């Protein structure tokens, strides 16, 4: 698989404080990569290092197969659109004037500008001053400014911050559409639900360390959900399963954590042998949120 972004041992320290530690990021080309972590976990710092806005203390960044350094950044940045922290834009100018600025600066044609503006559906707000934009409109203008250069890679730092549910949904649709068109999107969030269904790949950061990286399905497997057993005699069943840390749920069912399929079969056989009637066996439905909490707790939070 070819990675559009790959880092090796990426580390950023300020004095003795380590903000990002030993990160090995792998972003496959053409995917939506959800970069998750609580506030202050080092997401923005990582993204800034990817863009060479700040220099890593250790480790290196490869973008589109080339090392990203101060010497190479301007050339590589031509293929990267980004939005870091808050959306950019000159408040005293209108949306159209902001777009014209980037057009002149990067030597873009009018079609590229119109395409970017239409993609974020801002065409009816272009004559308003950015000062009078709502936060959602500013976010969309920021994305349009990043899209105008038709980047291969889009790096968006919390693009849904401060948006209402409709705005969040619109950004999600937009990211999916961009990925379908072949743009690789790296998007960060501290809220799982926001990128849960959009991202193909997930990277989870906690206190500057990557605690998980892989597909959504892999994430679910990484923290195997509880096996829930409905039976005729839950009390006896729990007593039988103490070695597996079995417990009684509020619904009067038996929950057993961290069982793989073979262990599950063994446990059920044991219960049947005890004469307990088994009505149902299933895996607990867990949301990404649960998994996330589970992982971050394991990460020593």
């Amino acid at each position, binding site marked *: 698989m070819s990675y559009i972004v790959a880092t090796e041992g990426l580390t950023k320290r300020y004095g003795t404080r380590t903000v990002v530690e030993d990160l090995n990021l792998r972003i496959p080309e053409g995917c939506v990569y959800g970069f998750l972590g609580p506030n202050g976990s080092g997401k923005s710092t990582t993204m800034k290092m990817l*863009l060479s806005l*700040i220099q890593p203390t250790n480790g290196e960044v490869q973008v589109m197969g080339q090392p990203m350094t101060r010497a190479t950044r*301007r050339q590589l940045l031509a293929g990267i659109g980004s939005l870091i922290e808050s*959306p950019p834009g*000159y408040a005293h100018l209108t949306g159209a004037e902001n777009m014209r*600025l980037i057009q002149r600066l990067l030597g873009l044609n009018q079609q590229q500008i119109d395409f970017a503006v239409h993609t974020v559906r801002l065409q009816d707000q272009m004559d308003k001053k950015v000062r009078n934009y709502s936060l959602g409109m500013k976010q969309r203008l920021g994305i349009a400014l990043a899209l105008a*250069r038709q980047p291969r890679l889009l790096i968006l730092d919390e693009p849904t911050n401060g948006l209402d549910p409709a705005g969040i949904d619109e950004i999600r649709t937009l990211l999916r559409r961009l990925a379908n068109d072949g743009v690789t999107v790296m998007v960060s969030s501290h809220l799982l639900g926001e990128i849960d269904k959009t991202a193909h790949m997930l990277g989870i950061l906690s206190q500057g360390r990557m605690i998980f990286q892989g597909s959504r399905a892999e994430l679910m497997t990484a923290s195997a959900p509880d096996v829930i057993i409905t039976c005729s005699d839950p009390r006896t069943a729990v007593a039988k399963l103490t070695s597996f840390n079995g417990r009684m749920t509020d619904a009067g069912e038996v929950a057993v954590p961290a069982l793989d399929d073979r262990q599950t079969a063994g446990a059920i056989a044991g219960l049947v042998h005890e004469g307990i009637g088994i009505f149902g066996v299933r895996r607990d439905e867990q949301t990404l949120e649960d998994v996330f909490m589970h992982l971050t707790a394991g990460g020593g939070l």
Partner: protein
Amino acid sequence: MGAIHSEFLKLKRSLTWAIVILLPIALVISAAANTLASGEPLQNGWHTLWQRSIVFYGLFPLAIGIAILASLVWSVEHRGSNWNALMSGPTPSLRIVTAKAVVVGFLAAAMQPVMLVAILVMGKAVLGLPGMLPVQYFGISLLIMAACLPLAALQSALSMLMRSFAAPIAVGLVAAGISVAVLMLGGTAAIVSPYALVTRATQLGTGTFSDTGGVTAGDVTAILTAAVVLFAAVVTVSAAILDRRDTRI
């Protein structure tokens, strides 16, 4: 050219234009007001009006004006995440720095024609001076405009490096004061300082301070050479600094 063009687009609805118009007019008005208040006619006609407005302008108001222009031009970049956007685009640092210096330099130089018009109007309509402003002052005005460029580049660099609006202006004021003192004590060699360079250019041909009163080819060459060399040096160094700096966290 794209970078310079886009910098000019940013000046729309900018306060910089008010500075460009109002600062020269205010200075000429104060020069004329002093004259009218003293009740005595200008000893040397146009020459005296020029000295009272332009030479005074060159002592420190011009440096302050340029400092304010530079801070205004950079303030939009320090706002929100515009800095991140600026530094995560493909435009090379040298081009960014040059475009900013050119825009600040343009605005700084634009104050001179405003100054000239204000002096002419004041001399003719208010003070009723006979004749016309001596023609040498038109040529000297072009030199002053050229001399503004390195100072514009330097103040632009300071405003780029300092997020504060006022700090680069304070630095400019102190540096202008020191440079004027060095210029008076040490003579023309002080024009290695961009602050002294504008002061020197505004004194040319007036016989005030360290000026001899004449305008020689040597004077003109020295000022133009200093303007070109200093501008190139300041822009090159500040682009290198910008390239080596991390964005703020």
